[in-house]
């Protein structure tokens, strides 16, 4: 996903001289080299100084540039939170904050590197948009969208090596719209970001055990949330399952519950989020997710208990 972002950003930068990337000593490796060679004056490393990174990007944007601030998600959002709030959101500037490692993908690096409440925090900011692509193809589409976006955006990316999930998706990627990535009936699974891979594993498990075709949706735009689209899903399916790599508070799960209440949905609704806890468990990303209760088998058992 990281490589996809830098590959597309290179293409975007080629077409638009206002594009620039500002990193805080963390850079998308590999394919960024081409960008750096061709546009050396539009690649800036501010050092390990995230407050400076965001303030600096705001200044660039105030002069008509289109900056991307880039580092690990926790550092990109938490240290310079007030710069994001005041410099970017209050002034409504077109700066995209790219957070690598959204969720707990940096599993063994520990809680300092886990962005497990990033959606809640960014959602609370007026003017902020949040896009969390589920695979490299969505990351590509999201990067193009970000380049044209008029206000601040948080682009929540994974890391590297994510599989393609949406090559045959029935719906196209459209900013602000829930996207059907697999057709089905009766049951629908909603997810966003790289845990969508696991959501699709759950889909396969349900289909294997229960038969039928289960639908899957990528809710890539977490803010503004496609409330009408989700309400429609809640009314269209008998069973709706939300899988997210984020704490329950103010994530997709909580918002879907609220929407279900508002629209008087009659479906069964099951939600799976990260625990409201710093879990000191060290293993793979999948191992840590399992500790949080996020595993196709565990979720299946809860749904059909």
């Amino acid at each position, binding site marked *: 996903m990281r490589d996809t972002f830098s590959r597309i950003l290179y293409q975007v930068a080629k077409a638009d001289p206002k594009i620039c990337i500002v990193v805080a000593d963390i850079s998308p490796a590999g394919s960024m080299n081409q960008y750096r060679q061709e546009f050396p004056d539009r690649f800036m490393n501010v050092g390990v100084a995230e407050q400076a990174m*965001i303030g600096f990007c705001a200044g*660039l944007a105030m002069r008509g540039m289109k900056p991307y601030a880039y580092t690990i998600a926790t550092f990109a959002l938490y240290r310079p939170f007030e710069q994001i709030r005041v410099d970017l959101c209050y*002034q409504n500037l077109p700066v995209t904050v790219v957070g690598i490692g959204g969720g707990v993908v940096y599993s063994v690096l520990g809680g300092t590197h886990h962005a497990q409440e990033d959606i809640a925090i960014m959602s609370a900011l007026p003017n902020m948009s949040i896009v969390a692509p589920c695979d490299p193809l969505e990351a590509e589409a999201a990067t193009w969208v970000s380049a044209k976006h008029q206000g601040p955006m948080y682009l929540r990316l994974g890391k590297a090596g994510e599989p393609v999930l949406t090559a045959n998706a029935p719906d196209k990627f459209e900013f602000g719209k829930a996207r059907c990535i697999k057709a089905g009936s009766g049951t629908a699974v909603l997810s966003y970001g790289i845990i969508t891979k696991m959501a699709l594993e759950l889909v396969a498990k349900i289909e294997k055990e229960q038969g039928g075709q289960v639908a899957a949706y990528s809710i890539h735009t977490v803010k503004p949330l496609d409330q009408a689209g989700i309400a429609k899903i809640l009314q269209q399916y008998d069973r709706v399952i939300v899988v997210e790599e984020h704490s329950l508070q103010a994530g997709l799960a909580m918002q879907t519950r609220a929407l279900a209440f508002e629209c008087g949905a009659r479906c069964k609704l099951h939600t799976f989020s990260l625990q409201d806890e710093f879990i000191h468990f060290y293993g793979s990303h999948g191992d840590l997710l399992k500790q949080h209760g996020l595993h196709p088998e565990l979720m299946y058992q809860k749904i059909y208990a």
Partner: protein
Amino acid sequence: MTATKPQFDAAASRTRCWQMRKRILEISQKVSALHIAGAYSCLEIVDTIYHGLMRRDADGNSPDTFILSKGHGSMAQYTVLENLGVIKPADLNLYCQPGGKLATHPDYGLPGIEASTGSLGHGLGLGIGMALADNIQKQDRTIYVVLSDGEMEEGSVWEAMLLAPSLGVKNIVAVADLNDFQSLGQTSKILPNFYPFDEKARAFGWEAVEIDGHNPQAVHDAIVARKGDKPLMVGARTIKGKGVSYMENVPIWHYRSPNPQEYQQAIAELDHAYHS
């Protein structure tokens, strides 16, 4: 249209600052509180930058940018902008009142206001971003940023200080309003290692100078004399509440309006000092 540096007249600046101090007092009588003392400490600095340094074309437009990073000193910027005809007197009269546009802190997008400030430690980073964008876009613009000494306790200021010369940004002039006071007391007592100030700026790669911040000519000359191969930091020694005896160096006047009697006394003192 070519923008040129205005001729600077220090005597005219002195007159304007006297009038603006009285105008700020006048506004103070319409609201329950305002940041009067911090506006008084940076008034000559702000006036000099706008009237003596920022270039203007025949229509009064400037390629240069002013950011009041110590946003609580807004009354200094508002009165200077009023003087320049950018802010309408009717709008300043409605400062912090229903129907008005002007708040305690400058708001991005209002006439003459190029950044939302009020939370300390933001302006310098913004200014450096603008300065670098101007370099990339080959625009000849200078960014002036006015900070407070209390503000410089924010770590973000030092991140920005380290960044500007590292990126080769030269077209930025920062002026630190060294009034030696913050909300709870004297900076030199709360954080004595803030001083010596100019040495720190130099150590971070800036050209640095310290001057009397209430002397408009000194402010003007220090900035004009800069070598230009580095960003410039001017340490402007000032007095918080300058010009009104009971406000000078008294922390409660950080955010307070004088009562009618105090108001009359302040006007009398300012008039006396100006005419003597």
